[in-house]
């Protein structure tokens, strides 16, 4: 193969292999955004799981909740810390959205950062978005 073709190929390889390095050059917003806690959430100080567990596991918990509500009509969740919560995204103060009132400032912050597109909102509605 000709020398030029090989050099062009190698340049393409190096540029492609280092893509993440030059794509993020000069970017300062690469730090994870902090989800904003509402006043209620700040006051309550406790969630259904511990903080790290919640960050890693909340989607599995919601999956279990969905099965529990849809199949067994059991809507009460007793957390490890003794508190009781509604197994619901959006009904009452004791549910997820009841405490974390602002979806954009709470859920979406991390989901957008990690490129996660949960399909929760294909069925559930965010009450705030309806009133807007």
């Amino acid at each position, binding site marked *: *193969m000709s*020398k030029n073709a*090989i050099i062009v*190929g*190698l340049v393409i*390889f*190096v540029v492609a*292999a*280092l*893509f*993440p*390095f030059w*794509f*993020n*050059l000069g*970017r300062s*917003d*690469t*730090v*994870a955004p902090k989800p904003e806690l509402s006043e209620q959430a700040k006051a309550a100080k406790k969630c259904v799981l511990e903080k*790290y567990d919640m*960050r*890693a*596991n909340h*989607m*599995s918990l*919601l*999956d279990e909740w969905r099965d529990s509500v849809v199949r067994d009509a059991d809507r009460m969740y007793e957390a490890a810390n003794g508190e009781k919560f509604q197994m619901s995204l959006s009904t009452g103060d004791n549910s997820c959205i009841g405490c974390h009132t602002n979806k954009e400032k709470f859920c979406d912050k*991390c989901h*957008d*950062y*990690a*490129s*996660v*597109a*949960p*399909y929760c909102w294909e069925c559930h509605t965010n009450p705030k978005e309806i009133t807007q």
Partner: protein
Amino acid sequence: MNQKYMLPLIGVFLLFLLAYAGVEGANMQWAFGIIFPYLAVILFIGGFIYRVYGWASSAVPFRIPTTCGQQKSLPWIKQNCIDNPDTASGVFVRMVLEIFLFRSLFRNTKAGFARDETNRLSFSWEIFLWVGALAFHYSFLVVLLRHLRFFLTPVPACVRFLEYLDGIIQIGLPGIFLSGIVLIAAVLFLLARRIFDGKVSYISLASDYFPLFLIIGIAATGISMRYFTKVDIVSVKEFIMSLVTFHPSIPEGVGGLFYAHLFMVSVLFAYLPISKLMHIGGIFLSPTRNMANNTRAKRHINPWNYNVKTHTYEEYENHFRDKMIEAGLPVDKKE
């Protein structure tokens, strides 16, 4: 027990344990999270260029394309333009099909004796290696491209679209990615082929098994982190972003399994240029594929040719003319 696959298997286990124990026991996050990944990038790119440079600077003494069809000949004989190309465009099409569809593997055959009394040796078409290889390579590509979501901020729409397609069957939470399942199934098939097919097993070496076990280890830890043991994905992304923006910082609370995954990936990348995995670059430089079969139309001069000192008949006669005339031998020139 076959030491050809036991040694690589133990090796991959040790690599896993080294990273897992190093992080969980000795708190060496800085080594497995920062030093080894950067080192792997340097070794990968440097080693890759070194290998390609080595191939590029070796001479190709002959035009040696493998011909799998009718050569260009008389006008009324139909040429196979792709399998026996005589132009650069034909070679290009041949290379594209080879790289994206593994056409030479598609022609794979197996030899076997007939099971009746004739006991005749016959060859049959064997397509499963091709199917397994396609499934493996493409699912690995999708997995690799999907991981760009940890390396880029904001995540480009094409990566998100790929994720959407990959997770389109929406089973469970977090949703199952098809590429992960296909990858682990295909790599297990390729491994089973090497272990259980006697003829393939006979020609398989430790260096054939090691990448397979390493990829199984990487896929298993990745799948485990996504679906079973869980990891704080936002901290992980923040950590990866800190690496690619050259401000490395170790996240809190991320466990040994993630570092084991990262370390095995680093080993895979560092190992790639010195192993058979280098076919990723080598496929472009295979002289049996990337040359046109035009030896009858163009003269191919061997770059190794040097000026051979020749002694023509004219020079010979000049040297011995007197003696030849004396002996009565015929000569071209009389004086």
